[in-house]
């Protein structure tokens, strides 16, 4: 018999074993198929992720203002745009104020027309939020009439919260003009996004850590029914099948299970894909159509899974090891991507910054904010620019206006009364050798010192002002934002007058932390008073967005993996129970209590997992240490994370045991055991 025929015969015999054997045989193959299918689905999702990210980035870039084509002067095709991003109950909301300057102004992707003044276009998720009871407070902030919905091509994901608000007051000019862009098109040329080597290492590690258990799981799944198969193969050996023939038959059987798994996996993937649009994790969501693996990756999975099914038979608990190693690497490189901001949330929870603020507007805003429920203290400060000549030759002096109480937030001023002024120590010398800090009695220009008569707003002349002769020199202290100020500090009656809209206004707000809605009320009040005002929540540290995205991705993957591990254990346990039905029958016949049998299942699951977790923890710690050592980082073990991961493993064991009990009890019923 030629080799090809022998192969065909043996493989088909293997397939016969997989699909033959009546209900029992089918059940076993189905269990294998479900197991492999889950792995395949995860692999398909894994292979679809790069494409999904690319699509997401492309849509993000298409509406980005960073790469937009800009214009200097108003024209038929220009649009004024300002970012007015919001936060509502810890959710980020993207926002843009738009004002068309001509009939051909560009329209953002996903919209057919620009919203007119007082009108708003929103993403479907934001529309739902605004319509829901949870969005009641947000409606106070974003109360404009909704006239359009942003289509999918203008969104990064289905759960993205985004609005475009039409404005008729947006204009360039003044100190805050850098926040307003004049553009002729949204899409522009942008450098392709690239991850640094550190982040790339994390991405590669995450993929390896997440996909290795999938491969192991697939290998384990095709071993379901191993006991029966071994008996079958032994019988074949007895009737004269040589080792090679038996291996081919076993390969045919494994291949059949893997092929069923591929079909089921494709089904799980498609089902999961249609569900994915309704899921959101840490405000990241994916359009189902974005999860579209490339053809060559599909081919790779279609070939690799059956190959792995035939070649690999290694049971292991490598998931926890990978996760611990990754956790260690994350902790090790955290400081590269998570930096202290210098901000002091203890002194102020929110800093509100408003450009083009007159004294009266600042006072009005400060009063409104102070009256917001949950605000304990409001500290308003006005900032202005001064110079020794005008227009300023590049060397400007910073001035801060505030009550004595407010000035104490930025300097150690000691005794103070209304009418006092202070010069801050330090400041050094300018490149021309001039002292940067002014001296008491020195005459300066304040207000519009840089762009006098040069911009689109009505010209505002600088005002002459003399630093009060009695000004004391004091030491600056970091303000709640961590900023160490220079220049002069003056109380309101000693400040320059009639600077127009040039001063900037800042209000520090202390809040009552026991009232969770306070921050949102503040943001609503600020947005209603001045959409371009920026409310910043003070944080001790800030995180690199790419790093955060990768960590989010890892959490996504780890969650999916835990589900996979749990399912795999459940399927394996059911398979084991099925194979040991005869033994169970004997034990029940001897009068073994059900509780004892139930506990035996727990132990059968728990002991291997406990052993596996111990080994995995050791391996993970060693692997993480090695990786950190290679990366030249200090080795640090975050025991809380290690315990949390090990705890998750224990949780999965408990859940699997619980889910295994109903079929066990069913099997132990007399009618279930009769045939055994």
């Amino acid at each position, binding site marked *: 018999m030629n080799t090809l025929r022998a192969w065909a015969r043996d493989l088909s015999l293997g397939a016969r*074993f997989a699909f033959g054997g009546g209900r029992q045989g089918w059940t076993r193959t189905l269990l294998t198929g479900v197991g492999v299918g889950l792995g395949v689905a995860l692999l398909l999702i894994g292979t679809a992720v790069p494409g999904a990210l690319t699509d997401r980035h492309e849509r993000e870039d298409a509406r980005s203002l960073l790469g937009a084509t800009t214009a200097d002067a108003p024209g038929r095709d220009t649009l004024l745009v300002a970012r007015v991003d919001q936060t509502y109950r810890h959710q980020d909301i993207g926002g843009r104020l738009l004002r068309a300057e001509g009939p051909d102004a560009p329209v953002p992707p996903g919209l057919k027309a620009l919203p007119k003044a007082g009108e708003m276009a929103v993403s479907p998720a934001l529309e739902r939020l605004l319509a829901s009871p949870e969005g009641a407070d947000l409606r106070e902030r974003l109360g404009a009439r909704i006239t359009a919905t942003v289509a999918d091509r203008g969104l990064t994901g289905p759960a993205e919260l985004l609005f475009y608000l039409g404005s008729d007051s947006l204009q360039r000019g003044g100190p805050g003009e850098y926040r307003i862009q004049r553009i002729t098109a949204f899409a522009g040329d942008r450098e392709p996004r690239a991850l640094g080597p550190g982040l790339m290492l994390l991405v590669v590690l995450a993929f390896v850590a997440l996909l290795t258990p999938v491969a192991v799981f697939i290998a384990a799944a095709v071993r379901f029914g191993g006991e029966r198969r071994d008996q079958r193969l032994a019988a074949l*050996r007895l009737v004269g*099948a040589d080792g090679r023939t038996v291996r081919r038959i076993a390969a045919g059987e494994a291949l059949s299970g893997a092929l069923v798994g591929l079909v089921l996996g494709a089904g799980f993937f498609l089902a999961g894909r249609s569900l994915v649009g309704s899921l959101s994790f840490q405000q990241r969501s994916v359009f189902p159509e974005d999860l579209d693996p490339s053809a060559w990756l599909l081919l790779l999975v279609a070939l690799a899974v059956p190959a792995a099914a035939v070649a690999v038979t290694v049971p292991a608990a490598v998931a926890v090891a990978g996760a611990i190693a990754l956790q260690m690497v994350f902790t090790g490189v955290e400081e590269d991507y998570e930096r202290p901001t210098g901000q002091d949330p203890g002194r102020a929870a929110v800093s509100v910054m408003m450009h083009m603020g007159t004294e009266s507007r600042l006072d009005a805003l400060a009063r409104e904010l102070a009256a917001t429920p949950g605000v304990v203290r409001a500290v308003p400060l006005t900032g202005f620019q001064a110079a020794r000549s005008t227009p300023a030759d590049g060397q400007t002096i910073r001035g801060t206006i505030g009550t004595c109480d407010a000035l104490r937030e930025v300097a150690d001023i000691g005794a103070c009364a209304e009418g006092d002024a202070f010069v801050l120590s330090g400041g050094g010398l300018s490149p021309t050798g001039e002292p940067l800090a002014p001296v008491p009695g020195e005459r300066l220009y304040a207000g519009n010192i840089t762009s006098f008569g040069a911009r689109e707003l009505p010209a505002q002349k600088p005002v002459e002002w003399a630093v009060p002769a009695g000004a004391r020199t004091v030491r600056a202290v970091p303000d709640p934002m961590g900023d160490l100020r220079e220049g002069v500090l003056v109380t309101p009656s000693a400040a320059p007058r009639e600077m127009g809209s040039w001063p900037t206004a800042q209000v520090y707000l202390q809040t009552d932390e026991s009232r969770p809605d306070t921050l949102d009320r503040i943001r609503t009040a600020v947005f209603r008073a001045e959409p371009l005002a920026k409310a910043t929540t003070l944080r001790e540290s800030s995180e690199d967005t790419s790093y955060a995205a990768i960590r989010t991705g890892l959490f996504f993957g780890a969650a999916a993996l835990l589900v996979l591990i749990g399912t795999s254990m459940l399927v394996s346990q059911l398979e084991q129970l099925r194979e040991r039905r005869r033994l169970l029958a004997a034990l029940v016949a001897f009068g073994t209590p059900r509780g004892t049998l139930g506990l035996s299942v727990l132990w059968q699951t728990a002991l291997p997992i406990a052993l596996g977790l111990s080994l995995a923890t050791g391996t993970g710690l060693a692997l993480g240490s090695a990786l950190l050592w290679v990366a030249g980082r200090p080795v640090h073990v975050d025991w809380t994370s290690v315990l949390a991961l090990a705890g998750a493993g224990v949780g999965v064991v408990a859940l699997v045991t619980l889910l295994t009990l109903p079929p066990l009890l069913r099997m132990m019923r007399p009618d279930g055991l009769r045939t055994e």
Partner: protein
Amino acid sequence: MTPAGSLLVATGLCKAYGTTKALDDAAFSIHPGEVVAVMGPSGSGKSTLLHCLAGIVAPDAGTVTYDGRDLTALGDAERSALRRSQFGFVFQFGQLVPELTCVENVALPLRLAGVRRKEAEATALGWMERLQVEDVGAKRPGEVSGGQGQRVAVARALVTRPRVVFADEPTGALDSLNGELVMQLLTEAARAASAAVVLVTHETRVAAYSDREIVVRDGRSRDMERAI
């Protein structure tokens, strides 16, 4: 009886599992068409002897010669080919493949030898008729009685017209009536095909179907002439 003219001869067989000696200088011989019962209490080493004779287990010492060929010197492929074409096996629990129908089980050795399906199944059905189980051909082993399953296993053992059939406690799981039937059909069919039968049993009732008995005790064998 001397080994002269023997089909299968074993001398000086030793086999140990850990510190337990299963065979200790055991000897065996069988002539073509002869039925030899290997008897002995449980754990005496009789099954190990059968496994060594069939080339399933390699002995630690000693030789097994089949038709002039030293089995212990053969590779896996050659021993497999020998089991496929020259030997047949019947075990206590039949060792049928549960996923295949009874006729497919009987045809399996022929299929492995390269015979086409139809031809193999036709031959298999012929043997099943002889063993009076042709009516269960389409059923799976799990759907037939123990006695029927064991007769299917005998048909499978004989389908390739082997020169030696190894039967390890073939009636061990059957009631006496079915046991008698299986033994009667096995020995008749074997004799008709001129096949030698190595019959491992601890039942004298079963051993009565043999031409000669060998008793194994503590790993040593002793040839007993049948008292007629």
